């Protein structure tokens, strides 16, 4: 077996351990963040070097090194990079455990990377738990009552959903006798299990288990409380990396293991239904929110709804059709940039004014014009308006749905987009037309500005010239090793 294929992950592990150890020796904690960034860059470089090749699966077919996995690895590394940049200021407030904070972010990223690559139910579960446990700890990192409560809720509900997922996996294993995804598919085919209700129940339970990760309704109950209580950079990380990892796993598992035509129609329908209720409940519930982190929480539920349209397309279209998968991947890429950018802007403002209330963002257009401009761009992207990335992402995924006869789903999604404009634009309005509480400027640090600029440029780039990223998404969607 070629250990080189595991290099991106190994580098990350090494740096996570190094950061924890150095924390004991180094007094300038800022350097720990820099070391973590170096680790991410190296890991990313290795991943890029692997891109495009065709490699055998490793660890007895438990892990794939295909373009799909590499695309997501790069996505997670990019998100972690921006989050660590944005944390520099935030972590500074903590007196202890700064090293652990960075190490945990690296480990959560490692888990997410493994989630995108693993092709066996057992390793999937382990990867998922690695991410989750790191995130439970990170959510409670502030150690104030609200953060601790959020962490505990997240842990308990996470445990429930893990149990549900395991139950589902057990059922699937029980009926097929396999844990490896490709083998499961073969077994379903040969034993003609496609219309077995018990297998369907197993699939359904797995949907529920993964649904927790991607925050689909009705498994989203943890979202507002956890988003509100967690340290803001971690909220951003949860809303993007954790969600994207969930989608990566779902795509690989359902495409590879449950791709049989009859079965895929069933889960396609389940995702269509979940898409509708997630969009609708997410958008409706976001409207009355006064706290921007809670609002972004519901917004991320709604975005998961739009993303599940792509999963529904995957389910109803033939295996050869790439549009559903590439739609999800492209949407995830633009959503990741947009949402991370939005959270960076929120960190920049709320860290200074010491409030997460939308009302306290009033007049930021005058007090912090650049940050306000960035946040406006990201919110516009979340609505799905040009020239931001979100517009192209929605066009792409809606087009995929229309081509496969899911027009009703698109109509509901468009209506939902209109509803969502209300609460996103409310923030924009408050920032530019609200009366500032004080005339004082809100400064931001260089690393925050850098992170903000990077994501804003990315959002504009995808929005104006979507071609290159679309191509990458299509390549990633075609190259499943299993």
């Amino acid at each position, binding site marked *: 077996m070629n250990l080189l294929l595991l290099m991106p992950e190994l580098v990350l592990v090494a740096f996570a351990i190094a950061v924890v150890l150095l924390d004991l020796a180094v007094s300038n904690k800022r350097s720990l963040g820099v070391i973590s960034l170096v680790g991410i860059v190296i890991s990313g470089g290795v991943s890029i070097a692997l891109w495009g090749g065709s490699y055998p699966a490793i660890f007895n077919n438990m892990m794939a090194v295909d373009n799909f996995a590499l695309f997501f690895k790069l996505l997670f590394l990019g998100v972690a990079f921006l989050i660590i940049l944005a944390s520099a200021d935030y972590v500074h407030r903590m007196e202890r455990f700064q090293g652990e904070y960075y190490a945990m972010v690296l480990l959560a990223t490692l888990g997410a990377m493994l989630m995108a690559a693993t092709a066996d139910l057992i390793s999937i579960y382990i990867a998922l738990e690695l991410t989750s446990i790191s995130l439970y700890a990170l959510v409670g990192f502030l150690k104030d009552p609200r953060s601790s409560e959020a962490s505990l*809720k997240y842990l*308990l*509900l996470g445990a*429930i*959903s893990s149990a*549900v997922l395991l139950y589902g996996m057990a059922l699937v294993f029980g009926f097929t006798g396999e844990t490896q995804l490709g083998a499961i598919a073969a077994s379903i085919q040969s034993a003609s299990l496609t219309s077995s*209700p018990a297998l*369907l*129940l197993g699939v*359904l*339970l797995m*949907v*529920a288990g993964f649904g*927790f990760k991607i925050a689909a*309704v*009705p*498994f989203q*109950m*943890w979202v*507002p*409380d956890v988003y509100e209580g967690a340290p803001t950079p971690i909220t951003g990380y949860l809303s993007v990396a954790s969600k994207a990892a969930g989608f990566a796993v779902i795509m690989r598992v359902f495409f590879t293991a449950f791709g049989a035509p009859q079965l895929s129609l*069933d889960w396609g*329908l*389940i995702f269509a*239904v*979940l898409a509708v209720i997630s969009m609708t*409940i997410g958008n*409706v*519930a*976001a*409207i*009355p*929110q006064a706290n921007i982190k809670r609002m972004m929480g519901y917004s991320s539920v709604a975005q998961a709804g739009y993303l599940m349209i792509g999963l529904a397309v995957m389910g109803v279209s033939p295996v050869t059709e*790439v*549009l559903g998968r*590439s739609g999800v991947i492209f949407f995830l890429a633009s959503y990741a940039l947009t949402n991370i950018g939005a959270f960076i802007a929120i960190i920049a403002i709320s860290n200074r004014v010491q409030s997460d209330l939308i009302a306290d963002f009033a007049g930021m257009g005058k007090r912090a014009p650049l940050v306000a401009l960035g946040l406006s761009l990201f919110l516009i992207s979340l609505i799905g308006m040009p020239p931001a990335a979100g517009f*192209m992402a929605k*066009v*792409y995924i809606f*087009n995929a749905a229309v*081509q496969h006869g899911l027009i009703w789903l698109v109509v509901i999604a468009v209506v939902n987009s209109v*509803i969502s404009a209300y609460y996103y634009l409310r923030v924009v309005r408050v920032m530019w037309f609200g009366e500032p509480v004080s005339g004082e400027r809100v400064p931001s640090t260089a690393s925050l500005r850098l992170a903000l600029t990077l994501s804003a440029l990315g959002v504009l780039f995808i929005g104006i*010239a*979507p*071609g290159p990223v*679309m191509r990458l998404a*299509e390549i990633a969607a075609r190259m499943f090793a299993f």
Partner: protein
Amino acid sequence: MPYQVAWTILLLPVISFFVISFILKPLLQDRPRLSGYTAIIAISGSLALSVWTLFAVMASPEHEVAVPGINWLVVDGGLTIQVGLLVDSLTAVMLIVVTLVSLMVQIYSQGYMHGDPGYHRYFAWMSLFTASMLGLVLANNLVFMFVFWELVGLCSYLLIGFWFHKPSAANAAKKAFIVTRLGDFGFLAGILVLYANTGTFDIVELRELALAGVLGGAVLTWAAIGLFAGAVGKSAQFPLHVWLPDAMEGPTPVSALIHAATMVAAGVFLVARMFPLFEHSIQATTTVAIIGGFTAIFAASMGLVANDIKRVMAYSTISQLGYMMLGLATGGVAVGMFHLFNHAFFKALLFLGAGSVNHATGTFDMRLMGGLRRFMPWTFITIVIASLSLAGIWPLSGFWSKDEILITSLESQPVLFYLALITVFMTAFYMFRAVFMTFGGEYRGGAPETHGHHPHESPKVMVLPMAFLAVLAVVSGFWNVGGQFGAFMGHGETHGFIEGLFHPFTQFLPWLSLILAGLGIFLAYAIYSARWLSAEAIGGWFHPLYVMLSRKFWFDELYEGVIVRLALVGGLFRGLQKVDERGVDGAVNGIASGTILAGRGVRRAQTGQLQVYGMVIGLGLLALALFVLLR
């Protein structure tokens, strides 16, 4: 020619816009002139590259230089939108017109806008406008072109309303934007009709489909008329002409560049660009000819009585654009475009001259001017040259292109030919009426607040561009004296220069038009200089006609009073308002309050109680399982 040259032409003013608006901003408070220099350097670069492009296109056998496109948007399953450039003879000529006039106007603006608090804002927008206009002429597909089409409209709006603190300027900007938007609706509809029937936005492909006869019949006619509607709005043709005279509220150099030489000509350019589509629909061609020919005489008649020098020129512009449309419809691309080419220079010059006069007297009202010949000799000479050119006096440029339009319209549209012939007389009359009122006789004092000061010639930075344009107003017509311009545009034969220069005197028609123009000039002299006839007396004899002309045929009243106030606001909008209040608002309010209530409901469910959360997950799972298994 490397294709990057074409992209660079477009990019230079874009860069200039960003540099002025973002990078130089901190420096501009103290040194506003930097913004002007930046814009001028950028446009000079574009001009140099445009000249290169022109020669490259001339040298290539098909008069076309291939520029590879970039796939901007490719969606699996059909939709592909390319961003690319189309550089052919038409584009090459337009590039020269746009960059050259833009350069002259921007050099001039340094003097005209001197000391204006919005100096750098002005140059940033001028750069953005030039970039958009270049994009419009370079675009190789209709979507891309439409984007720039709207961008020039936006820049026009911003620049008409440049002095937005004046209510009249703000209103004029709004009017221009809304009226042209009506035409743009047709343009967009035309694009969609074409796409729905051919599946392409590419201009070359569409032209080939029309030439091959694949695209034809009613589809082609309606598409062409849709595109023409866009052109009518942009080029201020009847009945959407009302915005252009009001647009004179903008700074005068803006009027010279946007509302005389380039943007208003975009409509003519659009028709020329898509000409094969028009050519294959007799209805479309006839529509273009009638609208153009009618607009020419209609606008000229209003120019006869206007007292504001810029408005005289605005009506003249509308009228000449009508000529161009008539030329396109009857004689093809070469005839229409040649007039566009010549007109750009002498009309830009006339506007710059009007600006110079305004600089000296503080007013645009010709009744307050007079006698400026002695104070501003350079302005006087250049304006006279431009006016002679516009009136169509041999051998100045206007003569050559106007003559061709008359010849071709006589062949295919005899009625419109007579209208065009009368317009020749009117044009000569109103231009020289303006010249005599402004420069002849005694100085009448200028604007009230400048009484007592003597007017003075404008600074060199303003006079030099005018002098340069005056040279062009003389010589630009020589390009087609031997038929070379026509050959470059793809049809017509060439012959010797001297032979071509004197050929008109062997024909009847040029004599006729020269005599008519001469009569117009003579009548203007008789009334406004020698005063053998009294303008007031003539106004009295034809009082109803005079009122009708000076009230612009009541079109503003018709549009604003009757259509907007009565029909739309009073009738349709009030009706819609009722529907809206009772039906739509009811529904929307219902949905909105329902949504908010639902939001509250969801919020209430979010109790913070972990047990409740767990229960929701369990119940949700159960519901889902029931739904799937019992389905």
